[in-house]
């Protein structure tokens, strides 16, 4: 097969940034492949795609797209490529058909060819019944399909997709994947940027970016093969699996560990022997089961292992003895106009539990979350924190909770230290206690080098750390985390979860939302929220068991999610 895109020593710097966004990247993209472009936020994925599309000029090195330079021969290159930026590049105040017409006009598709193409695209995307609807009124999944259709009005040689699956529910993600795979059968080459490692696993080849460096270029299976025989599952754990994980993580033989429902998954160092199960407190019944490596295991191996230090929150004082039920939701309902964002949501969260609200964007998990934390008034129903009704004693309830918002919501123009001091005062920490807690946060989250930097300029991982620090400084009993790990790299995600697990062991209750479905497995129990309804509630193992079938004996959490949504739709169908 021939290379469609050849990249040699590509470097791109942005003004005011010390480190280049891409550092001498060289690779070839072959015709007819789906190439996964993988890396956390800020690793250079978007810059890479924009350089290929000729939207940015390289500082060093060259790009060749089918014999053309993307900047010098912009016309030729843009006639051959299609690019779907993040958020799909749609005009929300134009209808589906008008958006398609615009891109068809711009690409010179006219007459009967246009009619035929539109018919094919609308059929392909399932948007035919919605041609008159404004793009802004479409669901996330439909927007994504329309964005793809607009990119495909003229069959390109190269299709660049920048995180097409962000904010889209798992069902739409799978559909999109199927659609794009069909395109490669027609000979279209696809570059698919993603932060989801399970998507990368399905690509023919992957380019793994980390802080601007290309750290792997090859088939995902080849990468996974590097850790073959080093991945194990500890099954049948007696007692606290978080304790087992914490012990195991710090063992010299272990490179990485995560919780997977009721089990613990371990990645061992090369040529290392697994720790004895007794030494990590797994109990007599526990078994060590070798499992097939996943792309994520290999990825962690590539970046030198997960987070292995002891969380500084471990061994803290026991908290909130006085409560058994930390959070109660009773028939929480929220209407926005005639739209029901959340409907009749009820559950209890016990003290010291990690409770997950799982669902796609727009499903209602953030709305539920905000009602629970007292930021949004329910239309009906009630929420209690540690037995205190949020409607009658909001400030009393709020003093017991910590909140980390989805978007970076600290003061970007204040330095790290100023933010810490500000939030300490807001939570009423003064004098010695204030100084002690700030010092502890700085140490716990390794913020020493960043104290005088404006927090808005911090790298994403540090922003998230600082946000978490500000939320836990006053030692809350209940911690609300709204997508705390969105966009951060897998190692930082593990660090976050190590802190969360340590706090939970001390008796803190954590309510977390996430769209990483593998993180749902870290929870003690999870509620699936879909279209404003709570469609399932249970432990990750229970939820997965509900989806198990003869064809799929060991479903992933994503499989479970899709099965439960489909079941729900079948019941509600007229």
């Amino acid at each position, binding site marked *: 097969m021939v290379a469609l895109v050849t990249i040699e020593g590509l470097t791109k710097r942005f003004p005011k940034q010390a480190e280049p966004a891409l550092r001498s990247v060289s690779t070839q993209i072959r015709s007819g492949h789906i190439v996964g472009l993988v890396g956390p936020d800020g690793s250079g994925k978007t810059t890479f795609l924009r350089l290929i599309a*000729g939207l940015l000029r390289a500082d060093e090195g060259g790009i060749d797209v089918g014999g053309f330079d993307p900047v010098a021969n912009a016309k030729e290159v843009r006639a051959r490529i299609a690019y779907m930026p993040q958020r*799909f590049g749609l005009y929300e105040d134009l209808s589906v058909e008008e958006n398609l017409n615009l891109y068809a006009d711009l690409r*010179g598709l006219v007459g009967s060819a246009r009619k035929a193409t539109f018919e094919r695209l609308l059929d392909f995307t399932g948007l035919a019944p919605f041609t008159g609807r404004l793009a802004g009124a479409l669901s996330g999944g439909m927007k994504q399909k329309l964005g793809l259709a607009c990119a495909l009005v003229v069959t390109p040689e190269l299709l660049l997709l920048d995180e097409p699956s962000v904010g889209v529910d798992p069902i739409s993600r799978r559909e999109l994947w199927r659609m794009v795979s069909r395109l490669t059968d027609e000979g279209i080459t696809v570059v698919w940027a993603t932060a989801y490692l399970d998507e990368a696993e399905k690509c023919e080849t992957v380019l793994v970016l980390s802080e601007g460096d290309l750290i792997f270029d090859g088939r995902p299976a080849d990468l996974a093969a590097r850790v073959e025989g080093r991945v194990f599952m500890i099954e049948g754990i007696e007692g606290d699996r978080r304790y087992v994980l914490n012990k195991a993580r710090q063992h010299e033989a272990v490179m990485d560990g995560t919780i997977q429902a009721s089990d613990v998954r371990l990645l061992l160092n090369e040529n290392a022997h697994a720790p004895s199960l007794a030494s990590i407190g797994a109990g007599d019944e526990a078994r060590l089961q070798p499992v097939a490596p996943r792309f994520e295991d290999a990825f962690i191996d590539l970046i030198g292992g997960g987070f292995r230090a002891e969380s500084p929150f471990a061994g803290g004082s026991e908290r909130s003895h006085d409560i058994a039920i930390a959070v109660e939701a009773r028939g929480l309902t929220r209407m926005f106009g005639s739209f029901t964002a959340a409907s009749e949501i009820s559950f209890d969260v016990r003290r010291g539990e990690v409770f997950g609200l799982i669902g796609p964007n727009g499903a209602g998990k953030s709305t539920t979350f905000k009602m629970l934390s007292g930021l949004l008034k329910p239309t009906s129903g009630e929420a209690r924190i540690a037995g205190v009704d949020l409607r009658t004693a909001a400030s009393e309830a709020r003093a017991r909770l910590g909140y980390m918002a989805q978007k970076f919501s600290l003061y970007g123009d204040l330095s790290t230290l100023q933010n810490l001091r500000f939030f300490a005062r807001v939570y009423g920490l003064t004098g010695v206690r204030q100084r002690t807690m700030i010092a502890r946060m700085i140490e716990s989250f390794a913020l020493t080098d960043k104290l005088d930097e404006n927090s808005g300029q911090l790298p994403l991982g540090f922003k998230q750390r600082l946000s978490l620090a500000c939320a836990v400084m006053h030692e809350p009993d209940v911690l609300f985390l709204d997508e705390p790990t969105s966009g951060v790299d897998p190692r930082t995600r593990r660090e976050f979860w190590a802190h969360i697990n340590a706090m939970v062991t001390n008796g803190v209750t954590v309510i977390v939302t996430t769209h990483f479905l593998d993180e749902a497995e870290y929870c003690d129990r999870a509620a699936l929220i879909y279209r404003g309804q709570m469609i399932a509630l249970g432990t990750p193992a229970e939820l997965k068991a509900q989806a198990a079938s003869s064809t799929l004996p060991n479903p992933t959490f994503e499989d479970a999610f899709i099965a439960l949504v489909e079941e729900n739709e079948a019941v509600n169908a007229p």
Partner: protein
Amino acid sequence: MRFSRFAAIMRKETRQAIRDPSTLMIAGLLPIMLIFLFGYAVSFDPRQFSVGVVVEQPTGETESFVASLRNTRYFEIETAPVRKDFETLMAAGELDAIIILPQDFSAIALRGEAAPIQILVDGGDPNTAGLVGSYIELLVINWLEQEWLDRGQPPLAPLVSIEPRVWFNAEISSRNYLVPGSVAIILTIIGALLTALVVAREWERGTMEALLATPVGPLELLLGKLVPYFVLGLGSFMLSVFVAVAFFGVPFRGSFLALSLAAALFMLCSLGQGLLISTLTRNQLVAAQVAVMLAFLPAFYFSNFVFELDSMPLALQLFSYAIPARFLVSTLQTQFLAGNVWAVLLPDLAALAIFAIVIFAICALFTRTRLD
């Protein structure tokens, strides 16, 4: 440059403009609001002044003097024997001036000597102070003349009769130059602010990136975006002229075609400014602030629309030549009130054309189909 791509952008832009209520508000409602504001609410015409007259010793002469003051429509007169109360009232801002007729007023005036009248004016508002002062002076001279004539004696001063005639704005109504001038402000807002907002919005929503990745060229993009707002701006212009003439009775003495040409050239300048601002800022909030600072405020202050350039320091007068609105306002005011004065019109048109060319050259320089 391919026509179909230009037409595609233009169609899209038109649809968005029609669908966005804020666009129609800015283009349709705002002109009418501004015109009514400048037509009704803002006025620089003299109002009635409150004047206190201190008559220390009432005589026939003082009475006739006060009566002559009362006969003008400009003054509201109060009299008192001492000045103390009036001083308090003036300090409170309720009197604009105090006229003091001393005890020996009649005697001295009738002897033909200079009668010592003291006029105290509230200098808090210098414009009013100057106006009141000179009105009273004029009235005093008139009254003296009249007194002498009544007595069959030759007047003190050689008799020169001044009969002022005001040209171009015979009623000396400020509305007649404010309303035409506001058209320049309206076009600045539509051109610079609206364009800056809509283009910045494309950057913010990420649609610009999708657009740039297609084969669309810079010229197609530029023109396709501008034409709809150009048409919108000309529509607002005609609406404004119509309202000015039909509702406010502002005379229109020039050629509508010539004025339209000037407005069209000015519109190009504004659109170019707006485009440039949004290309450089890429953010709606910043674009709006910059558009207000760099387009709206200069057009307001340095166009001779409200603030007279002649009374500004030389440096600012020179600066005003860098403001396109200055040239449109002068054409607007002459076209409405004086007629086709080629000596004003031609230089203005030339200046506006140069501005348009320069601004578009800069725009073309900055419009790339790349993100950096």
